[in-house]
């Protein structure tokens, strides 16, 4: 009971932090006292001060305003990726596990092909072929991440195929759609959700990585990875640009990982009980 309570508290804490992040990303517009894109050359390379809490960049733009502006790109593109891979992977995986036979074989062989490559290298290659842009970055990460869900959903479904209540459902005359949606999906969902929550952080990092390499966000998007890539030229003269963007990335990834962890703990303790 104590364990469960503890994980519940953690879940609430991480949800509150997440809420704060969303408020900052969505409502942050109101705090923007400076234009995030318009250069103000007279104020270039200002150190953090009251007027510019995180300082200004090489073109005199407020680093704080740009981080707020870029947070939406970073957070929502990652959520979008996870939503797509979660849906596609789960559907394909459960379908494969449920159908069995040749279909299972084909789908699983396809995932094997995708998994044969180091994942980030594959994402870089696909983004490189598709060209720059957040959308292309999202697509390339989807291509890399969906296999996890597909494999997990399939193995969970296979393990469910022979359990007694499944047999009972069949005997009672439940149709295939009913079995799939009423018995299999609800049972595989918790593990997949935890994986999804844990993946958000790593997708955000991968997206920033792609942008850092010049393959994700295009100008003038203030995506964190892209900003850090430009700011590395000023590592010695204006370190605040890269440092604050790095901290923002760190905080967001930590919050999402915290959420994923507490969600997993909660489900684990529930399963134990």
């Amino acid at each position, binding site marked *: 009971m104590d364990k469960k309570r503890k994980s519940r508290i953690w879940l609430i804490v991480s949800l509150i932090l997440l809420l704060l992040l969303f408020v900052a990303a969505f409502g942050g517009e109101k705090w923007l006292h400076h234009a995030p894109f318009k*250069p103000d050359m007279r104020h270039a390379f200002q150190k953090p001060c009251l007027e510019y809490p995180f300082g200004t960049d090489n073109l005199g733009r407020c680093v704080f305003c740009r981080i707020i502006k870029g947070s939406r790109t970073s957070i929502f593109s990652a959520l979008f990726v996870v939503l797509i891979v979660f849906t596609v992977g789960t559907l394909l995986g459960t379908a494969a596990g449920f159908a069995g036979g040749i279909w299972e074989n084909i789908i699983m062989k396809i995932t094997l092909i995708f998994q044969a490559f180091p994942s980030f290298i594959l994402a870089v290659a696909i983004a490189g072929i598709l060209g720059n842009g957040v959308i292309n970055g999202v697509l390339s990460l989807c291509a890399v991440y969906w296999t996890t869900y597909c494999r997990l959903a399939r193995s969970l479904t296979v393990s469910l195929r022979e359990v007694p209540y499944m047999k009972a459902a069949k005997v009672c005359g439940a149709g295939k759609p009913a079995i799939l949606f009423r018995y299999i999906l609800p049972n595989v969902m918790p593990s997949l959700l935890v994986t999804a929550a844990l993946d958000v952080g790593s997708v955000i990092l991968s997206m920033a990585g792609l942008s850092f390499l010049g393959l994700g966000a295009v100008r003038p998007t203030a995506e964190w990875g892209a900003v850090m890539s430009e700011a590395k*030229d000023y590592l*010695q003269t204006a370190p605040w640009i890269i440092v604050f963007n790095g901290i923002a990335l760190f905080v967001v990834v930590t919050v999402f990982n915290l959420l994923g962890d507490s969600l997993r703990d909660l489900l684990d303790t529930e399963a134990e009980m």
Partner: protein
Amino acid sequence: MKRKAAVIMCAAMIAAMPMSSVNAAESGKHFTAGATTGFFGAESLDVAYNWDGWIMSIYGISENLFRLDASYVPQPWIAESYENVDDLTWKFTIRDGVTFSDGNPVTAEAVKKCFERTYANNDRAGSTLAIASMEADGQVLTIVTETPNPTILNDLCDPLLGIYDAEKEADPELGVSCTGPFVATSFSAMTEVQMEKNENYWGGTPKVDTVDLKIIDDTEALNMALQNGEIDLIAQLPASGTKIFENNEAVTMDSATSTRANFLMYNLEHAGVDDVNVRNAIGMCIDRESFADIVYNGYATASYGIYPETLPYGSTEGMENAVTAYDPEGAAALLKEAGYEDTDQDGILDKDGEPLSIHAITYSYNTECLQLADMMQAELAEIGIDMQIETFDVLDDSLTNGAFDMAILNYAMAPTGSAQYMISMMFETNGSNNYGHYSNATVDELSEKLKATFDEKERSDIAKQVCAELLKDRAFDFVADQQLICAYSKKVSGFEINPSEYYLMTNEIDIEE
């Protein structure tokens, strides 16, 4: 898996260690310099291949008949003297006692053979200097040009016409034998060249024994390499590095006014930018002073003309010029006057139903050009022009295919000191780099006239007339003229910066051990 990768990396590092330490431990003085691909990147060590002659001249491997001095005036180098026999005929006396690094003497015959090979292998040679015939007699080389050529001495400074031993087959790795103070001992394309001094150098034995020139494209890594003593000199220091070295006691920073400029080239075949009012309005939205003072940290000068003001034909005095200051309000008014209005309220101006949207391209590795693009994108958005930026490692394809409305470029405007160079290359209707399809009959006419004019004063006047036409049309918009900056350790002596980007390594460079 990770552990395996780490083991392989460690093994590679250990394997690489003895190599680098052997180099450093070699007896004698060792000099190391770094630069980005733009300055040090050669594909081969063959003077005649592509632009490699330019890089080999920087390396101190190849030399020309003439050399540009600090004021862009050609001075005798491998050629000792010359005589202009008539409009078409020039006689050059090759310096006695000059040998190639392989020991063969440099004779008029050798120079002739060298030019013949270069002209056969590189198309650019013919447009640099059109030669009708050559004749060699002992040390005297007679060149007959196709048309009267007042800039032949400048043209002979182009490193493409560097002197090498054409008798000998070029080595697949180490290329051709030249006359410079250094000889390559190992070369890997676009990465690194290692050299040793040319013991037989005609101008006096070089003061350093071995030289290592490295390409380091990450500007911060380049700066740090000089800071931690890994390299002794940075050639063509990116502007962001100037702040780091300004207050560094162990480093000297030299700059020279080069002719390198940041400019915009418009594709006149594309709607929107084909309107001179739009081009003028864009020009008014560029804060050139801030760009020069802040992005370049003062190592550039704002430009409202065509050529740098330091050149005799650089002044724009008395010329009609629509853009003389940063004036975004004026730009907005100009567009309104020209009939551009935001009829659909989407924040982007339109005319005849066509939104004013510009596709701009620039180099992905040139941080100054990228910052100019960022500045312009935000400024133009304010007055209702949508600007999309696309960046490339190599721009050639997009430029040749016309896949741009506006290109943000960075060129040396007069690398040989002659105005003709860029007029023929970019401003003439059929110029090889006139990717925007600019065509002005007056410019073409003036260019032909310039080619046949020998008098310096008259040549400057013609060049100025070309500039006046260009300013009126604004198919090219010059933003800033940058300086060539080199930063080097206080241990280095004898280094002299030359505003032309053709030269770097000389026999005079020395280093304290």
